[in-house]
């Protein structure tokens, strides 16, 4: 349910522009988006923390969290619920 908001943040932080509009829940992120370098990962975490008012731990920075747009949205949903 957070998919659209997470997608918008991802597009803004990575400056994906129109190319980002085509992303959906199954779109792979880590290793597939060249824009997602280490600075972008850290910026994205910061933007998600600010926007959703959540605290993301170092342990959360895992390959499974950033695997797809859907897994990232599910992670945000779990943080919001927790």
């Amino acid at each position, binding site marked *: 349910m957070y998919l659209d908001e997470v997608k918008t943040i991802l597009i803004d932080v990575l400056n994906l522009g129109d190319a980002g509009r085509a992303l959906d829940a199954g779109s792979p992120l880590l290793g597939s988006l060249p824009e997602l370098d280490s*600075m972008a990962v*850290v910026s994205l975490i910061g933007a998600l923390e600010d926007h959703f008012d959540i605290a993301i731990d170092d342990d959360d920075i895992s390959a499974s969290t950033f695997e797809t747009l859907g897994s990232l949205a599910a992670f945000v949903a779990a943080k919001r619920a927790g």
Partner: protein
Amino acid sequence: MNAAPAEPFFLDGAPGRRFCLFHPPAGTCRGAVLYVPPFAEEMNRSRRMAALQARALAAHGYGVLQLDLYGSGDSDGDFGDARWEIWKDDLARGAAWLDARLGQPLTLWGLRLGALLALDAARMLARPPRCVLLWQPVSKGSAYLTQFLRLRTAGALLDGAAAQEGSGSLRAALQAGDTLEIAGYDLAPQLAAALDGLDPLEALAPPCPVHWFEAPAAGTALPAGAARIGAAWRERGVDLHQYALPAPPFWTTPEITVSQEWIDATSNVLRSDDGA
């Protein structure tokens, strides 16, 4: 009006020399501006925006000094030698140079961690600034250090490394006196400790007008943190103007990113503030 070409030169610092680029004002001089760059890789990624903004302000009659802090850019020293106190001294020297060259009131213009550095340095300047320009200021040095340390965690993630060091263990290593390499930059324990011990943005309200620009992700509302600090500053009587502009985060994007709207908005607030 077209501005004269920028003048590169070296300014004596302690220790070593600092690379500077001075953009002379076109026409009648309206003021002096000292740019305070962000930290590490953010400085490189925002270089184009800083240069374009400096040129735009010079065309509007401001003399703008861009100074590479000790251990960065084309200045002397390695990044691992950089210290917060040296950087503040760099800014004091830059401000003194502008004062001698132009004899005009000073505007401090800081991006990200450069905003905190500018406000911290403003407290020790011989002549306090007339105005402060903040671009997406970092609100807390310790939180910023955590984010910087996370670059190593994120880098390991991208490399597919199984085990990653968290920012907690990296911080412990710094506190034990180790220098750490983070995303290609040597971070000295002294500089890390200075960031951890820095006064937060909320405590650094300057006694002059402030123009504060934010580029919020996903929307045009001011982020909650910026709004909260802004309210606290206003309560203390700061003449604060905050602007939320939809712009890409040009200090982090891997591709060089320019927002002309952001540059125009910045030039406009400074011009309309003239003589205030």
